């Protein structure tokens, strides 16, 4: 048997009763006001999910993404070796702290000295006082050699036996020969024993 209009109205009574309430009406109005925003957000979510599904379905894209991540993060993923090294470091930390404590004041001292201009000047002056005389002797010796070379280059006189005899008489040559003679004598002594 078909329902009459009055029967339909009776079915809707609870709903109509609810809708007659002021709070419900206000809530409905607020919901309707927010509806366009909700629809936009839902559409955006729908699009994003569709994108993710598309990427996941696209094997090439997935492989590219994961491969890139592996390259970047892979550097930082601790391997077994690095974990063992970390454990060793932690284990030896008391010893390293002790060494650092010993080295720290020395480093601070060196830094303090380097920043103290008066101390740097004093050390430089002291080094010059030590190096100066040595440098002078070396320069003198080198200068002597250079001058002797120049003199020798100018001398074109023939060298004969008389030149050699004259040279032997030079005190410096005499001393050198005596020195070599003494050196040879002393060097051969252990062999005689």
């Amino acid at each position: 048997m078909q329902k009459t209009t009055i029967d339909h109205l009776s079915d809707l009574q609870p709903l109509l009763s609810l809708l007659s309430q002021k709070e419900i009406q206000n809530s409905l109005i607020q919901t309707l006001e927010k509806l366009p925003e909700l629809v936009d957000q839902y559409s955006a979510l729908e699009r994003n999910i569709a994108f993710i599904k598309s990427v996941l379905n696209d094997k090439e894209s997935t492989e590219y993404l994961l491969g890139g991540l592996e390259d970047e993060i892979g550097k930082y993923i601790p391997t077994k070796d690095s974990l063992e090294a970390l454990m060793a470091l932690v284990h030896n930390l008391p010893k390293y702290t002790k060494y650092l404590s010993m080295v720290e004041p020395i480093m601070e001292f060196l830094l303090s000295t380097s920043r103290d201009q008066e101390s740097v000047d004093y050390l430089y002056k002291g080094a010059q006082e030590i190096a100066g005389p040595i440098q002078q002797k070396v320069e003198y010796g080198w200068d002597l050699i250079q001058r002797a070379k120049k003199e020798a280059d100018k001398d074109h006189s023939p060298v004969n036996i008389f030149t050699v005899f004259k040279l032997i008489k030079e005190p410096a040559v005499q001393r050198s020969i005596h020195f070599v003679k003494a050196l040879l004598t002393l060097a051969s002594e252990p062999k005689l024993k």
Partner: protein
Amino acid sequence: MNDLTDYKVIIVGGGSAGITVAARLLKESRALYGKIAIIDPAEKHYFQPLWTLVGGGVVDKKVTEREQSTLIPDGIAWIKEAVEAFFPDEQSVVTASGNKLSYEFLVVAAGIQIDWHKVKGLKESIGKNGVCSNYSFDYVESTWENIRNFSGGNAIFTNPNTPVKCGGAPQKIMYLADDYFRKSGVRSNSTIHFFSGAESIFGVKKYADTLNRVIERKGIETHYLHNLVEINAPQKKAFFKNLSTDELVTISYDMIHVVPPMSSPDFIKKSPLAADTGWVDVDPYTLRHKKYGNVFGIGDCTNLPTSKTGAAIRKQAPVLVQNLLCLMNQKTGMQKYNGYTSCPLVTGYGSLVLAEFDYDSKPDESFPFDQAKERYSMYLLKKQVLPIVYWNGMLKGLL
């Protein structure tokens, strides 16, 4: 000028010991920042060990002097006054201007007092008429003047019968003078005399043996147990008392290098902190005052039975700081000082014996070779390295 009158720690004296202790305290405990005061009126600070070489003409005296203000560690209050009196029962000190400063802990690092007036005629003669001394920044150059201009005759070098700072200094300048006289060609017509109030050349046999050989090699005439009591500068005569016989010995000189008698500062001598001898009465191992538990002493002003040197202070300072902090924080771990001290004994231009020893006069050496041998390397250590270690290491609380 600092307005505070209450400090956690007051340090009397801003010399080697005072500044070293202040720097170390701050390094060990940053909580003490702004709570430590150094009381010292001096505006200049000197690295006195180098005065031997200034007197010997090797170093310019200017490099031994620095402004005190550049050395006071950051975070330490500097009260530029002299301490007049101690009131340890009230935990306070009073300065010359009448300011009363209170402390929880006191460190006395006042140094040693030079008593020029105790040798008759010395104070008015120093720096002229052949009278010189390395123990004053104002007069140290007169030593080099006298050595450089010496043309022969009697050269006298004295050592008093009191404790002195740097026990080797009286003889070091003598060895340098001998070297210079030989270089300048006057040694053959000179006589060098060493008049010492002590019984021997050095208290540690290992180094005394070397020094006696040096004296013999250099032909120096020694007179032990003879104390300088008077100088007649116009007549160039020096008067010595023979401590064994009380006899007065008069000797003419052409130059005389005087090491004046020394004692504890007067304001300590008359204080409750002093022992019978006038020095700050501290335990030789912990450096803590024997009567006042919150008072410590360090360096030349104490009755520590060891030679009064900067090297000794370098070893005393960490012990004092550790012990003070243990007391302050009520913790265990007090350290002991073994009496370590050191005397770099210059025996000529370019040679030095590095004496290092402890309370038992036993050698306590830093290097793995015989330090009783005269060495150029040790001379370089004294001349080049130690000043740097002092300014940038010790005074910064690092070494």
